[in-house]
């Protein structure tokens, strides 16, 4: 039994929130499907508090440079791809993917110091990643995004990808890793098992859930009945989450991989992406799998909208008041902080393994009751 002293119970709990750091996380950030950037045109990407230009040269390599030309400040993302270089629309200065000025057509030679900021890029599973590092170091070999098994296989669907701009700091989306209860109240899910593991640069959420009969749409009862789902979702670094998500139906399982990723635009906004692929099976031949992927994609997007509505109205809080059935918010933020400090300042507690399993007895009891009440109310209304 936890005893609350009179002094503690009388004191008003203040919400605390420090100013948001001007620094952006170190790590790989996904900019979306790589194909988007291979149309021979430059693309504007607002990320990490600045404007970037993303372009693919004739050699097929996709490059990310600072958006502004070092000559007179022209916007390179309004320029033209010429060969393997991006040409500024203002005076045709040509910049290579390594950040060096390769040519100034009207000048005999390129001046010294003609170098701009270039971000390391990586293409994997048909997605484009960019490495952000405030210290300017190259991406270490052991800080990788794992290859996604189904992403390059014929028996899985293609990516269904969505992008949404969200006007809040990206810590809000990270907090969801440990927030079991919001899945019931915001997303119409019913978690029955919930565990987190943080270790190194990976933060994992293991969740099992059952379907919510009170959330099923009227008349949506066609096809096989969904019983529940099992999900193992890991952030690999500060922004890229791979969720191995299996839906359990009467008689078969549906395997999918869900990506939940983002990159910061500035301190108060980020670009939130979702991607999904679904495995074909006997029960789910290619065409049906494509249709399912499409349906799941809009379902995920609807889930994002539910989060966004909360974020739009909530306040930032550094000192959340937690009950024992909440997840490890403080330990998650301790893990997340490793991406905002210099590598030399990463403390062991930020990366040491931490496991947290929630006791779901009480939540399940309470939610079961609420589901039954909702069903009874619905029956009463239709009777």
């Amino acid at each position, binding site marked *: 039994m936890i005893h609350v002293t009179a002094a503690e119970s009388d004191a008003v709990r203040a919400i605390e929130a420090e100013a948001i750091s001007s620094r952006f996380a170190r790590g790989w950030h996904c900019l979306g499907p790589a194909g988007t950037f291979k149309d021979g045109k430059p693309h504007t990407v607002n990320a990490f508090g600045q404007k970037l230009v993303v372009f693919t040269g004739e050699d097929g390599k996709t490059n990310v440079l600072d958006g502004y030309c070092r000559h007179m400040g022209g916007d390179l993302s309004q320029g033209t791809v010429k060969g393997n270089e991006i040409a500024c629309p203002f005076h045709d200065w040509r910049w290579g993917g390594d950040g060096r000025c390769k040519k100034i057509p009207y000048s005999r030679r390129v001046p010294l110091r003609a170098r701009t900021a270039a971000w390391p890029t990586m293409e994997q599973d048909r997605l484009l990643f960019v490495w952000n590092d405030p210290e300017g170091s190259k991406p270490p070999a052991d800080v990788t995004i794992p290859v996604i098994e189904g992403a390059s296989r014929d028996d899985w669907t293609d990516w269904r990808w969505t992008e949404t701009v969200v006007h809040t700091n990206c810590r809000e989306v990270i907090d969801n890793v440990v927030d079991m209860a919001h899945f019931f109240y915001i997303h119409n899910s019913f978690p029955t098992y919930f565990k987190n593991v943080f270790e190194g640069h990976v933060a994992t959420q293991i969740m099992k859930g059952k379907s919510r009969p009170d959330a099923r749409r009227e008349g949506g009862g066609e096809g096989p009945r969904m019983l529940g789902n099992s999900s193992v979702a890991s952030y690999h670094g500060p922004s890229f989450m791979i969720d191995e998500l299996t839906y359990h139906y009467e008689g078969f399982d549906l395997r999918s991989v869900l990506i939940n990723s983002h990159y910061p635009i500035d301190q108060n906004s980020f670009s939130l992406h979702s991607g999904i692929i679904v495995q074909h099976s006997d029960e789910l031949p290619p065409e049906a799998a494509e249709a399912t992927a499409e349906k799941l994609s809009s379902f995920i997007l609807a889930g994002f909208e539910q989060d966004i509505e909360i974020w739009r109205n909530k306040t930032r809080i550094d000192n959340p*008041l937690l009950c024992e059935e909440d997840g490890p918010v403080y330990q998650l933020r301790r893990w997340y902080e490793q991406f905002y400090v210099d590598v030399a300042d990463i403390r062991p507690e930020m990366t*040491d393994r931490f496991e947290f399993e929630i*006791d779901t007895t009480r939540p399940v009891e309470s939610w079961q009751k609420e589901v039954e009440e909702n069903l009874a109310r619905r029956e009463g209304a239709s009777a």
Partner: protein
Amino acid sequence: MTARQDERLLDGPLLPVRCRRCAAEVLVRKASWEQTSIQWNAAARASCVSLGDDPSGTCPALRSAIQEAALTGALRVAG
């Protein structure tokens, strides 16, 4: 960013539990019989041999050691 403490630890701190298989010592808190927090350090992590296959699992030997500590009262179960 100031490092903040999970205030739930004020009601029941993390306590050391030693695994019998590899002698790794971790810090554990149980808010109830079904809730468990496990804080590892580098030395304990290096000595555990059971975590290889499933990175999101809990070492079965450690799980038994925690259960035993909870049953004997060496680890106080809050709530």
